[in-house]
């Protein structure tokens, strides 16, 4: 008996949605950051349908290893199975709905509900209850009442994603050519990557899209927002991005990666020369593995978001999920990623460096948090919320002739990725099924 969650009934799109953005004109309105009505639609049409990051495989080494996280606002358990696969379950007992696992991570033989003693094995099967004889007398069918299982789970280079929607496209199709760019951080050395340390959790009073969009393609803010933090860490200003001879904004299905080819711009802000040296040391082997081009991206000035809410910074090696907690609140889950093959000293340096810069007390994170909270809060004003916000930089910068995969735009000081992010969001909010989501990709689906 399958306990896999079926597709939800999708409600109609909001009738007045067209007013909130027009990406061809390069505008959105603040309403999308504050409206409860829109937020409810997002939980259903974005978070209950898209592939969401749930774990790194290094967090689930052996059978019974698990972590708890959320997919949208739905609490889930991610657990390694006996056969090596990974399953994801709702963290809710199918009897009265009580949460069955309260720990963030661990290793277990199963999950037992505190309420009536329903007990589940790591495969989600209901194996028994307190007073089991009563259930047997009622001819209760245990096989029908296991933990509810998330429809699809798949991984790419150690990154585990899941979707509630059995009809969602495959992860491969969903990510498309973005995987080519993901490899620059997640597959630049033999053995791949791992998370070091635990999960850092914090909250912001901001909308999840502001944060996700910042990572999808907004390096523009760095030179201004982070000036003082950069001076503290580097002893100088942030690199002047407009001076880079070559940089790009690439997107696909609302995901985006903006990057320069300066190799060490991001790692440099951690202020540890040994990390810069490590990057330079591995660079020739990265060039052999991934080619010269991507060896310039290992720790360069860059950032990325996989739609909707999984983001990372190569070089700072911070990996994060902006968990939605209402239209004007997020819970931020952050981890530090390193190459498995890196020396222990380097891993530890990266962990500390990420703490100094992109943690709740990190110098860069504080800069961003303040801005994002006020981008959200100003939209509390009914009049303010209806005004246009400009997102129109780099309108005609699509590169038609390029060997690079994806929708490739010239320059990273460009709002092309932000527009693509909001466009995909808007398309999902208007689509009752995946077949109604228009394909707006213009570039190559695969690397040449």
């Amino acid at each position, binding site marked *: 008996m399958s306990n896999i969650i079926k597709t939800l009934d999708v409600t109609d799109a909001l009738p007045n949605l067209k007013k909130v953005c027009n990406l061809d004109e390069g505008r959105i309105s603040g309403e999308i950051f504050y409206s409860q009505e829109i937020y409810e639609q997002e939980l259903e049409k974005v978070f209950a349908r898209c592939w969401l990051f749930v774990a790194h495989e290094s967090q689930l080494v052996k059978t019974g290893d698990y972590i708890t996280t959320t997919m949208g606002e739905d609490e889930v358990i991610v657990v390694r199975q006996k056969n090596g696969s990974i399953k994801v379950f709702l963290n809710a007992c199918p009897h009265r709905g009580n949460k069955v696992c309260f720990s963030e991570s661990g290793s277990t*033989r199963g999950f037992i509900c505190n309420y009536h003693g329903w007990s589940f094995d790591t495969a989600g099967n209901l194996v028994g209850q307190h*007073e*089991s*004889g009563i259930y047997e007398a009622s001819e209760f069918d245990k096989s029908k009442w296991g933990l509810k299982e998330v429809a699809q789970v798949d991984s790419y280079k150690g990154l585990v994603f899941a979707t509630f929607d059995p009809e969602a496209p495959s992860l491969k199709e969903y990510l498309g050519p973005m995987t080519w760019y993901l490899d620059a951080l997640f597959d630049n050395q033999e053995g791949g990557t791992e998370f070091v340390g635990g999960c850092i959790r914090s909250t912001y009073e901001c909308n999840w899209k502001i944060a996700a969009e910042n990572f999808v393609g907004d390096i523009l803010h760095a030179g201004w927002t982070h000036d003082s933090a950069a001076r503290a860490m580097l002893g100088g200003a942030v690199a002047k991005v407009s001076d880079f001879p070559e940089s790009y904004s690439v997107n696909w299905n609302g995901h985006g990666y903006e990057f320069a080819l300066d190799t060490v711009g991001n790692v440099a802000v951690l202020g540890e020369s040994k990390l810069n040296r490590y990057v330079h040391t591995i660079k020739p082997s990265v060039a052999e593995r991934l080619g010269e081009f991507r060896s310039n991206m290992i720790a360069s000035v860059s950032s990325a978001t996989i739609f909707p809410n999984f983001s990372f910074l190569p070089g700072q090696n911070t990996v994060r999920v902006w968990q939605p907690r209402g239209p004007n609140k997020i819970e931020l889950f952050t981890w530090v990623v390193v190459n498995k093959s890196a020396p222990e000293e380097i891993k530890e340096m990266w962990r500390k460096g990420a703490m100094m810069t992109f943690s709740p007390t990190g110098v860069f994170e504080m800069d961003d948090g303040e801005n994002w909270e006020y981008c959200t809060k100003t939209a509390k004003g009914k009049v303010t919320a209806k005004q246009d916000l400009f997102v129109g930089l780099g309108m005609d910068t699509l590169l038609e002739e390029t060997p690079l995969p994806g929708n490739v735009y010239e320059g990273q000081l460009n709002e092309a990725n932000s527009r693509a992010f909001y466009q995909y969001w808007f398309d999902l909010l208007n689509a009752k099924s995946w077949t109604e989501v228009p394909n707006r990709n213009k570039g190559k689906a695969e690397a040449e």
Partner: protein
Amino acid sequence: MEKVYLCKTSELADNQVKKIDNATYGDIAVYNLGGQYYATADLCTHATASLAEGDIEDDMIVCPVHWGQFHIPTGKAQGFPCEIDLRTYPVEVVNDEIYALVDSNLIAKG
């Protein structure tokens, strides 16, 4: 005393437990703890569960359903939800065959 055949020693590796079906006295769990053999009732005294499907931790058997524990040599229940001791049987090994010695007068079926 009835001598109930359980299994061969070769069928029970070290630190393993095996369930032996027995319609007369109730299923029996037989254990090998470092070459020492033990036998207890297989049914957990708390809820419906075969202890042979549980894990052995040192000299305890952990019930697979609610993870309550029993001391294998004595059958002593270790605490909530397992509060009733497990029946144990003396074991006799004859050549390579393991037997449980069951007092047929004292044990009701099941």
